[in-house]
């Protein structure tokens, strides 16, 4: 027996590798009609991994001190070998993560994968989406540039519209009356420790739920698209006669990941400053507000919504209601039909919602 085979045999008799491979890879069957959209979860796992690795690397040189933060970021960009690459990967990656997460959620909605019995998968995914927005917002402040400083001032100020506790909440978020060194300290702790841990735990919960309940069958190419689950007892949705995860679907996962990486590196190498307005290159000055401070693209719709309503509280309430509706959608949209073309009201809301989001984003950008 060759040395490699001996090691494999040694592990196999102790861990049951053959059984694991059979159960989790070659014998793990997925619906025959599964499509490429189902691989976005794997793409997101890779993006999260890249964010964690580049984040740890940035921590080696980044100094979370209001006096030194901007200088340390400049040092990373200009003096550390390939520091620009690590930082660009982290900054571009955070934007890409939000974009891919939106696509992942939209595809799940479109194919009715959020429906019963997968309500918990949707809810954990929705919480993850909010946490990713939170980790992006807290990371935005860390370079301590004019953009970071004033975008954080505006973003934290919005909480002030909440009745009674609003002003206290703003000061709690900032660690003082205004954005300052205390804000940097708490945003840093939340960005590098708290949120990554919570996101990691929720990814675990999301995957656990996926594994327990089974992968949903896409509603396309099936004669019957309705769910037959009665809601009476637990049932793992298996797919006898389906395609194996390994090698068939893993190949799709790898293809999607490589397509993502191609797009990602195109942005990093050819248009790295697409997410950096000029104010991102000026150190924070608490006494000088620059003109036209705008949030990141994924907050532009929220930003514009706050502006179109006569009162900030009303704007916040509308957004809160919309987010609550989205979070609870599997409990509201309870029909068993999953094919989008057989759900005209859903399809109209789905397309209308996307157009509204894009419209408000563009309006926010040019307002």
């Amino acid at each position, binding site marked *: 027996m060759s040395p490699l085979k001996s090691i494999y045999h040694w592990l196999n008799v102790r861990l049951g590798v053959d059984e694991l491979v059979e159960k989790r890879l070659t014998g793990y069957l997925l619906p025959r009609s599964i499509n490429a959209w189902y691989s976005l979860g794997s793409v997101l796992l890779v993006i999260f991994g890249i964010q964690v690795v580049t984040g740890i*690397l940035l921590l*080696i040189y980044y100094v979370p001190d209001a006096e030194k933060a901007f200088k340390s970021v400049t040092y990373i960009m200009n*003096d*550390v*070998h*390939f*520091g620009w*690459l*690590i930082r660009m990967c982290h900054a571009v990656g955070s934007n890409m993560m939000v974009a891919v997460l939106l696509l992942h959620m939209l595809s799940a909605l479109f194919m009715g994968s959020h429906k019963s019995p997968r309500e918990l998968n949707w809810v954990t995914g929705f919480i993850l989406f909010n946490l990713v927005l939170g980790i992006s917002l807290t990371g935005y402040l860390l370079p301590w540039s004019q953009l970071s400083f004033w975008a954080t001032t505006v973003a934290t100020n919005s909480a002030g519209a909440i009745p009674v506790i609003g002003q206290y909440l703003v000061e709690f978020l900032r660690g003082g009356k205004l954005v300052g060194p205390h804000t940097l300290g708490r945003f840093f702790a939340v960005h590098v420790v708290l949120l990554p841990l919570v996101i990691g735990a929720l990814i675990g919960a999301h995957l656990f739920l996926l594994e327990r309940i089974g992968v949903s069958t896409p509603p396309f190419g099936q004669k019957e698209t309705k769910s037959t689950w009665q809601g009476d007892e637990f049932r793992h949705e298996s797919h006898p006669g389906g395609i194996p995860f390994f090698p068939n679907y893993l190949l799709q996962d790898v293809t999607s990941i490589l397509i993502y990486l191609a797009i990602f590196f195109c942005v990093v190498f050819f248009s790295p400053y697409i997410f950096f307005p000029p104010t991102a290159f000026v150190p924070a000055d608490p006494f000088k507000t620059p003109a036209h401070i705008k949030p990141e693209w994924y907050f532009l719709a929220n930003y514009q919504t706050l502006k179109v309503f006569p009162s900030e509280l009303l704007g916040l309430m509308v957004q809160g209601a919309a987010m609550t509706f989205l979070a609870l959608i599997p409990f509201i949209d309870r029909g068993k039909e999953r094919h989008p073309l057989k759900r005209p009201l859903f399809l109209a809301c789905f397309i209308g919602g996307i157009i509204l989001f894009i419209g408000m984003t563009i309006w926010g950008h040019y307002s």
Partner: protein
Amino acid sequence: MQTTSRRKFLGICLGGLAAAGTAATAYPLLSYLAPRSIDETGGKVTFPETEIPPDGAKIFDYRGTTGVVIRKQSGELVALSAICTHLGCIVQWENEKQNFLCPCHAGRFTPDGAVISGPPPKPLAKLPITVANGVVTVG
């Protein structure tokens, strides 16, 4: 036979791509983590002679390491590396004993850096020193 060779060819291509990808990731990563290069040949350290205490030593950064200057009882200035040759701790000048003590493992050195006792295997490295117009230059 044809299938086998095609599979082999594709395997080699994939292996090559994986190796190229690994190299493309490893090179920037290792460069990023590598310590910043310090000029070990140039870079002289200068300070006023008055900064050397009459009964003590001046310890200073020297080309990424640590140096020390003492004034011997004869008035002569001596510049040495302050890194103990045993395990790299910083030696301390003991004026009353007129020698260096390494606090880590009690190694002792003469004012010229020679080993008196303890585990250090080699003397402290001597550094070039000049004094002109009240300014000390090391290096």
